[in-house]
């Protein structure tokens, strides 16, 4: 059993067919930490996040997380286009058993979408859909937040919303952000983990 609210990744490996996507990835992240996972395309960043989220099976090593719900914001917004903004949030909140109308309103206000709550998700711009995806991840009271290139497709206002979320949720969560542009974190301090060819080449934990 690992320590509560500490994410431990040890010697993680992932192989699909003959291709070894993750060769040996180890690091730790504790409560309040913001980790920027960087690296070239194909370095294994998204695979790493999907394994931590439980969406993909690992081939070796271990991921230890005992902290509670995991919020995952993927490259795609992962929304139901024919459902309204509010219905999208409510559906996932009910799935996790965290439904509260007041919370829905708070989160939609946080991501500046309250005025659009009755609009179908399909008619929103890509940036607005991404903000709704962020609200959906926050709806489940996450203790670990995983973001896959969240700044992509966000305009200046959207990036400001995301920075607000990163800052507001920092004290009570562990946050991992895949990004090619860590400069968007602005004044938020962060630790960088750089992946190359399925290995941590900078900022990892070699003793783990």
């Amino acid at each position, binding site marked *: 059993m690992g320590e509560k609210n500490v994410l431990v990744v040890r010697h993680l490996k992932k192989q699909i067919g003959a291709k070894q996507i993750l060769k040996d990835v180890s690091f730790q992240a504790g409560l309040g930490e913001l980790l920027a996972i960087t690296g070239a395309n194909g370095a294994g960043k998204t695979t790493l996040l999907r394994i931590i989220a439980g969406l993909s*099976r690992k081939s070796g090593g271990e991921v230890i997380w005992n902290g509670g719900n995991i919020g995952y914001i993927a490259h795609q917004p992962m929304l*139901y*286009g*024919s*459902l309204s903004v509010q219905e999208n949030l409510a*559906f996932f909140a009910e799935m996790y058993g965290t439904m509260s109308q007041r919370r829905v309103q708070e989160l939609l206000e946080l991501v500046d979408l309250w005025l659009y709550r009755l609009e179908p998700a399909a008619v929103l711009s890509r940036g607005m859909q991404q903000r709704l995806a962020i609200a959906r991840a926050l709806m489940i009271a996450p203790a670990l937040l995983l973001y896959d290139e969240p700044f992509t497709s966000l305009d200046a206002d959207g990036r400001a919303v995301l920075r607000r979320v990163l800052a507001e949720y920092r004290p009570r969560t562990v946050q991992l952000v895949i990004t090619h542009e860590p400069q968007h974190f602005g004044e938020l301090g962060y630790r960088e983990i750089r992946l190359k060819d399925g290995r941590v080449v900078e900022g990892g934990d070699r003793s783990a």
Partner: protein
Amino acid sequence: MPSFVRKAWLIYCKDLREEFRTTDHLLSTLVFGTMLVFVFSFALQLVEAAPEAIFPAVLWVSIVFMAILALQRSFAKEKDSGALDALLLAAGDRSILFYAKFLYSLTVLLLLEVIVVPLLWVFMGAAGTTVHMPLFVAAVFLGSWGLAAVGTLLNGITVQLPGARLLFPILAFPLFVPLLIGAVLCTQGALVGETRAVLGWLYLLAAFDLVFTIVPLLLFDYVLEG
């Protein structure tokens, strides 16, 4: 309500809400089923055959083709919108998705049959035929149950593969064959009044349904592997 049942019910209700909000798929499948009825009835008017002899085969060919169209929809919505990952995370146990999608597919299939089967009954000239209604209803229900269960399992297997829309019918047909044989013979038994003779086939249908409803509980975690 236990978490497993509650989550499956929420996904089922969400799927139906989406289906009825954008009725284009349901409507196009219904139009396809209705066209099949008309094409069969015109074509078979040209040959001399007793309705009870050809009705069961025509009925099940129509249902299987409608099912192929309708069943592909169950996971396609998530695949197209990218919401499958979000749903997998929220569901936790992946077999929840199977039971929700299976129920959704069965509901859609039964709704289509409520319209298409009476139309076929009338247009095939079977209106004057006496029918053993409990056996007929049991055959249609158990046949549809099996189609929905197999279809949902295969849809889960193929949805993340390239060429899923082509793969699904190719993989589905061999598995549909035993179901089709049992369903056609039971339907014919209901029409000609030979209920005892086809009871074995009815049990086979029930056993087939049971297997394909329980097996995914063990398999589905691996089926939707990312």
